[in-house]
């Protein structure tokens, strides 16, 4: 695998092997010296055209644990402000000897475009409303390992709640959870559903109360306050009443149900209970799994064999 641009491009086998490799990275991350020489001499550049502290730091930590060198391209202080084009920026960095670009951009498809301008690997760290594949990977790892069922989620129901229309996390996660065999239920106001939802392998309901008693995983999306201004929801209070995780709804969850959130949380909007009071909360595990999942992706794209195996294996 040369690039990771979208969950759609992954085969079920590739998804499973990324999840298995993540187990290794979890073990490495738990050592007294959480560092291996695997990617020594490789350079990973984070190019974030949109703010994200946690994803960028997670990728950089992952690269460092694999002994890669890291470069951070800070858009705020760069020549982008002098009018340099995206393509020139990428070509300039490539000329410095970058082996992998970790890219976040507000426009869908930018990571894909970048693959045409460089020989380096490209990892999508979030593009517009399109995809956020490493988030899906860390979420699938968190969920499957919590249930202890290998890479199989058949028989499990995952409810994804909130603004699906503007969410790259939802697009990546729906596909990934479905690939592992889970039934995916979307819980959202009609105004926050994308038109293409009819083609997705999901069931749609319009109130959290309809499914809260039966689901195995509750995945809360971040409710972006700016959607309010666009009059897509009447008020945040109304959204919470219908779609928020309230203490009453938390009590109705099944005993082993998990609660996930990609962060940053809007307390009082999509989540109205303190996650520390939720036995099923996996929100901190998600952050922990994030570094290991990104190690798995970096290792996979940068270690791809270019020469067939030589002689007998020892």
């Amino acid at each position, binding site marked *: 695998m040369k690039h990771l641009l979208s969950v759609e491009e992954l085969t079920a086998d590739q998804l499973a092997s990324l999840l298995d490799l993540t187990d*290794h990275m979890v073990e490495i991350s738990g*050592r*007294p*010296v959480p*560092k291996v020489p*695997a990617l020594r001499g490789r350079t990973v550049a984070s190019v974030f055209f949109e703010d994200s502290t946690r994803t960028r730091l997670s990728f950089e930590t992952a690269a460092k644990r694999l002994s890669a060198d890291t470069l951070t391209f800070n858009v705020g202080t760069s020549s982008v402000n002098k009018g340099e084009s995206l393509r020139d920026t990428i070509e300039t960095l490539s000329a410095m000897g970058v082996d992998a670009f970790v890219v976040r951009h507000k426009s869908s498809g930018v990571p894909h475009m970048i693959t045409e301008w460089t020989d380096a690997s490209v990892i999508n760290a979030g593009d517009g409303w399109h995809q956020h594949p490493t988030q899906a990977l860390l979420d699938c790892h968190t969920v499957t390992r919590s249930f202890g069922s290998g890479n199989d989620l058949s028989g499990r129901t995952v409810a994804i709640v909130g603004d699906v229309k503007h969410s790259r996390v939802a697009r990546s996660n729906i596909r990934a959870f479905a690939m592992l065999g889970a039934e995916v239920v979307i819980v959202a106001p009609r105004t926050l559903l994308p038109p293409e939802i009819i083609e997705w392998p999901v069931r749609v309901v319009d109130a959290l109360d309809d499914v809260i008693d039966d689901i195995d995983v509750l995945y809360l999306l971040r409710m972006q306050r700016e959607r309010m201004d666009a009059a897509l929801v009447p008020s945040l209070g109304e959204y919470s009443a219908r779609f928020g995780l309230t203490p009453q709804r938390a009590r109705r969850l099944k005993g082993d149900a998990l609660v996930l959130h990609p962060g940053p949380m809007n307390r009082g909007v999509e989540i109205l209970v303190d996650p520390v009071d939720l036995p099923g909360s996996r929100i901190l595990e998600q952050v922990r799994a994030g570094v290991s999942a990104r190690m798995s992706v970096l290792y996979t794209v940068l*270690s791809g*064999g*270019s020469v067939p195996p030589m002689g007998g294996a*020892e």
Partner: protein
Amino acid sequence: MAVERRAEVLSTTDVGRALTRVAHEIVERNSGVAGLVLVGMQRGGVWIAEEIARCIASFESQAEVPVGSIDVSMYRDDIALRPVVPAAVTDIPVDITGNTVVLVDDVLFTGRTVRAALDALLDHGRPRAVQLAVLVDRGHRELPIRPDFVGKNIPTHLSDEVDASTAGVYVISTSIGNEMRKKEVS
């Protein structure tokens, strides 16, 4: 066309006998089992490490030698030259600092895996000493590494493959390999 030839060099009984002898040699060299840790290299070395521990337990009363396993993929020198995918998770159950670690593998060949294992091991602590036990030494070393305990020395051709398991040790050679051998001789 390549014709595969599979020759048995050690039977199941021979494997058991060789490992029993290696177990005795390990105990003798270390004057007992105090401070000894067996670490099998994933994957081929793990069952051998367990087998050696079982042998030691059978003749040394109250001798529980801890057994761990180590995956060296992330330490290999051929990452990106060929696909290197970890075989299994590393699990070293005791602190190896100050102890004598016996690294265990099935087949010793170029020595590159052992080199990687030494680096991997040192990330888990600082052993007092590291020794190397292998079921088969097939030659063709590419690094200055030698085993301390050998079940059986088997001369092989570079292109041969060696298959070692509880079912015995087999050398698999192909006719293509034999042609290469002829060329080298002439």
